[in-house]
C-alpha cells in the first residue's frame, strides 16, 4: 500500500494543481457500473443494489448506475475484473473482507493492493446458530456437547470468514468440529433446518427467515456487546435478546465482516474522493438506516487511514489463523 499512497499523493498534487483554477471536483461523465462480487441475492449484491437505489432516488449523481454480478470464484471474478480495469473510475467494486483474505489462502490473480480502497460501510455480525429443537440452551452447553468431537459445522465457502471463525471457536472452546463448506449462507441455513448439520455461524440476514419460521435459533453473538434491540423477530425475541458469546463463556469478543467498496487501481485521488463523498451522502439518507436495520448490520464508515488500519489489523489476525491451519499459499 505504501508505494501506491506515495504515488497517489504526488498524482494528487499534480491533478490538484491542474484543476485548481476551476475548483471543479471530478464528476462522472458516463454511466457507472457497480460490480457485486457475489451472485444475485447475497449480502454483497443486496448492498450494491441498496446503494444504487438510494443514489437514484436522491439523484446523488446525474449518471445512471447499473449493477452487474461477478461472483464467480467466491468473488475473485469481480476483483480480477477490477484489477483489469485499472484507471477506469466508472467501475465500483462491492465486496467484503474477501478482498484481502482470499489472496492469502488461494492462488487468485489479484490482491487488495491492486484496487483503490473507497470505504468500509456496514459491518455484518456473526452468530452461533443451532437447530430449534437442539437440547442446548447456551454456548456453554453447546461446547460441552461438542466435546464429543462429532459436531458438524456448516458455512459458506472454504477458508473464508465462516471457516476462520469455526477454527477460532475450536481453539477457544477446546473442541474439534467438522467444517462442511457450502456455496452460500442461505444453503447452509437450509441444511441446518433439515438437521444435516449441528450448527453454523451465519450473519443475521442469512438466517432471519429461518429464525422467524422456527427452524433454528441463535445461541450467542460474536460481538463485545448485545445488538441493538430493533423490532421483534419471533413472537418473544429480537436481535437484542441474543446474549454475547463472551457472556456465555465462549471467549471470542469480536468477529465482524465489513462490507467494502473499491475502485480499480490507478484512479486519481479526486475520482476516489468523489466516491467517498458519494458513499457518505448515501449513508446520511433514511433509506440507508432502513437497509441497515432490516439486514441487522452495524452502521460504520471507515475510509482513508482508518480503513487502511482496519485492513492491516484484520490481515494480521487472519494470517495467524491461516498459518496455524496451514492454509497460507506459498
Amino acid at each position: 500500500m505504501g508505494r501506491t499512497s506515495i504515488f497517489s499523493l504526488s498524482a494528487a498534487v499534480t491533478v490538484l494543481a491542474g484543476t485548481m483554477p476551476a475548483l471543479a471536483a471530478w464528476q462522472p461523465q458516463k454511466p457507472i457500473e457497480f460490480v457485486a462480487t457475489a451472485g444475485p441475492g447475497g449480502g454483497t449484491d443486496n448492498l450494491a443494489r441498496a446503494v444504487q437505489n438510494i443514489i437514484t432516488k436522491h439523484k446523488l449523481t446525474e449518471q445512471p448506475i447499473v449493477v452487474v454480478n461477478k461472483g464467480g470464484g467466491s468473488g475473485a471474478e469481480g476483483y480480477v475484473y477490477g484489477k483489469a480495469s485499472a484507471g477506469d473510475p466508472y467501475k465500483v467494486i462491492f465486496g467484503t473482507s474477501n478482498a484481502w483474505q482470499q489472496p492469502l489462502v488461494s492462488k487468485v490473480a489479484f490482491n487488495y493492493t491492486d484496487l483503490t480502497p473507497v470505504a468500509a460501510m456496514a459491518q455484518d455480525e456473526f452468530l452461533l446458530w443451532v437447530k430449534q429443537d437442539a437440547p442446548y440452551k447456551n454456548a456453554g452447553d453447546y461446547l460441552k456437547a461438542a466435546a464429543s468431537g462429532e459436531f458438524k459445522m456448516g458455512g459458506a465457502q472454504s477458508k473464508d470468514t465462516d471457516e476462520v471463525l469455526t477454527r477460532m471457536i475450536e481453539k477457544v472452546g477446546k473442541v474439534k468440529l467438522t467444517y462442511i463448506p457450502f456455496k452460500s449462507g442461505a444453503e447452509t441455513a437450509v441444511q441446518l433446518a433439515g438437521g444435516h448439520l449441528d450448527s453454523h455461524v451465519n450473519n443475521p440476514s442469512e438466517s432471519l427467515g429461518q429464525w422467524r419460521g422456527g427452524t433454528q435459533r441463535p445461541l450467542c453473538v460474536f460481538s463485545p456487546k448485545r445488538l441493538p434491540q430493533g423490532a421483534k423477530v419471533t413472537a418473544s425475541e429480537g436481535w437484542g435478546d441474543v446474549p454475547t458469546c463472551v457472556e456465555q463463556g465462549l471467549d471470542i469478543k469480536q468477529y465482524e465482516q465489513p462490507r467494502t467498496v473499491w475502485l480499480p487501481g490507478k484512479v486519481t485521488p479526486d475520482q476516489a474522493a468523489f466516491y467517498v463523498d458519494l458513499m457518505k451522502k448515501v449513508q446520511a439518507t433514511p433509506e440507508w438506516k432502513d437497509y441497515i436495520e432490516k439486514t441487522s448490520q452495524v452502521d460504520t464508515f471507515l475510509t482513508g487511514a482508518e480503513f487502511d488500519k482496519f485492513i492491516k489489523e484484520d490481515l494480521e489476525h487472519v494470517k495467524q489463523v491461516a498459518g496455524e491451519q496451514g492454509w497460507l499459499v506459498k
Partner: protein
Amino acid sequence: MDNLAELLHGFTIAVTVPHLALMVVGVLLGILVGVLPGLGAPNGVSLLLPLTFGMQPVSAIILLSSMYWGALFGGSVTSILFNIPGEPSSVATTFDGYPMARDGRPTTALATAFGSAAIGALVGVILITFLASWVAEVALAFGPAEYFAVYFLAFASFVGMGGAAPIKTVVALAIGFAIAAIGIDTVSGSVRLTMGVDELVKGVSFVVAVMGLFGIGELLVAVEEEFHARAVSSKIDWAEVFRAVGRLPRHGVALLRSAAIGCWMGITPGGPTAASFMSYGIARRFSRRGRYFGTGEVEGIISPETADHAAGTSALLPMLSLGIPGSATAAVMMGGLMIWGLNPGPMLFVDQKDFVWGLIASMYVGNIVAVALVLLTVPVFAALMRIPFVVIAPLIVIICVVGAYSVSNSYLDVVMMLGFGVVGYLFKKLFYPLAPLVLAIVIGDKAEDAFRQSMLMSRGSLGIFFANKLVTCLIVAGIALLLLPLVLQLARLWRKPASAAAETTAQEKVII
C-alpha cells in the same frame, strides 16, 4: 381444502385488468429475451428488476414471473430452429426438435414443444397449490448425500440409456467433469485447472459451452456436408399449430411420465436441467419408437419440454418456502423479494398470504396467457426456416458471438465459445455423444460438491449413501438404471446373438 379457498382468493388478486396487462407485457418481453441472443431469462429479469421497486410486491412478482414463463417458451424457439439452446434446460429439446424442424416440420416441432410445456407447467402449479407444505418438508430432508444421489440418478438415467458406445459416453462425461472443475473449488477453496489464465477463475459458463458445442458445431458440420440443400420450404400453416396440439393427448403416457419426473426433480433439488435430460433418457428407453429418437420424434420433444416446465414451475416452491433458489432466474427473483421487503422462508406463507397466493394464481393465468401468445407466434418463427442457409449461417455466428460475449463482457468467452464449436464438430464427426458432456458441465460440479460434503460428514465412509430410506432408494434406482442396458444386452446376446449385433449398428447411426 384451505388451499382451495386461498387459491380462489389469489385469483381475485391475479385476475384484475392491471395484472393481466402486466402478464401480457411480461410474457412478450420474456419471449423476446428468450429468443434474442445471449439474453436469457436471468438477464432479462435482472434488467427489469429496478423497474419494479416502486410496485406492489404482488404486481412486481407477477411481472417478473410472467417474463420467466415467456423466456422459457422463447428459449425453446432457438433450440428447435437453430440448435442453439438458450437455457441449460432446453438442451434436451434440441435432440429431436432440431431434426424435426430441419425435416421441414418447424411448425409441428414448435407447437408440440409449446403445448407439452404448458401441460408440464400446469401440473407443476397444481402440485404447488395442493402440496405446498408437504413439498417444503420433502425438500428439507435433502442433505448432501441425498443431493448427490439425485444427481447420480440423473447421470445414470441418461448415461445408461444413451445411444452411443458406453466407452464414448464415459469419455464425454469425463471431459465434461474436467470442464466443470475449472475455477474455484467450493470444498477446498483452491483454484483449479485455470492453466495460468486469470480470468478462468470464474469457471466456464454453460452458455459459452452450449453455444459453441451446438450452434457453431452444427454449423461446421452443415457447411461441410450439405451446404447447398439447407433451405427448408415450409409454408405458413395455422391449422398445423392446432393439429399438433390436438395430437398431444395421443402421447398421454409420455406426458404423464415426463410431468411426474419434472415435478419430482423440481421439488427435490435436481432442477429443470437434470429433469429434462432424465425424462428424455427414460423416454428413449421406454417409448415404442425409442430407437428413432434423435431423428425428429414427437415424444423426443414432448418428454424434455414437459419435464422442464414441470420442474421449472415446481422449483419456485423451494425458493418461496425455504429461500433456496432452484435456478439462476429464481435467484434474481429472490433478490427482488428481499428488496421489496419480503423474506423468503417458511414464514412467507403465513405472513404474506396475499403475495404467495396471488403469485400462485398468477402462475395459472400467466401460463395460459403465455401459451396463447406463443402459439400465435409459431408460424412467424417457423417462417424463419425459409431463409436460405447462406443468410442464416452468418446470423447464427453473430448470435453465438454476441451471446457468448454478453455473458460477462469478456473476449475470452468468445474465444472459448469458438473452441467449443470445434469440439462439437469433432464430437459429431467421431460419433461421440454431446449430451453427457453438457450434463456433466452443468451439474458436474454440484454433484462433486455434494459428494465431497457427504464424505466430510461421514469421515470418508460410503455408508452415508445407504444411511436412510430416501438416499438408499435413490442410489439403488441409479445403479439399477445404470446396469439395466447392460443386463438387457446380455440377455439378448444370450438368446440371439445376431440380432443384438445388428441393433447396435443401427443405434450407432443415431447418436445424440
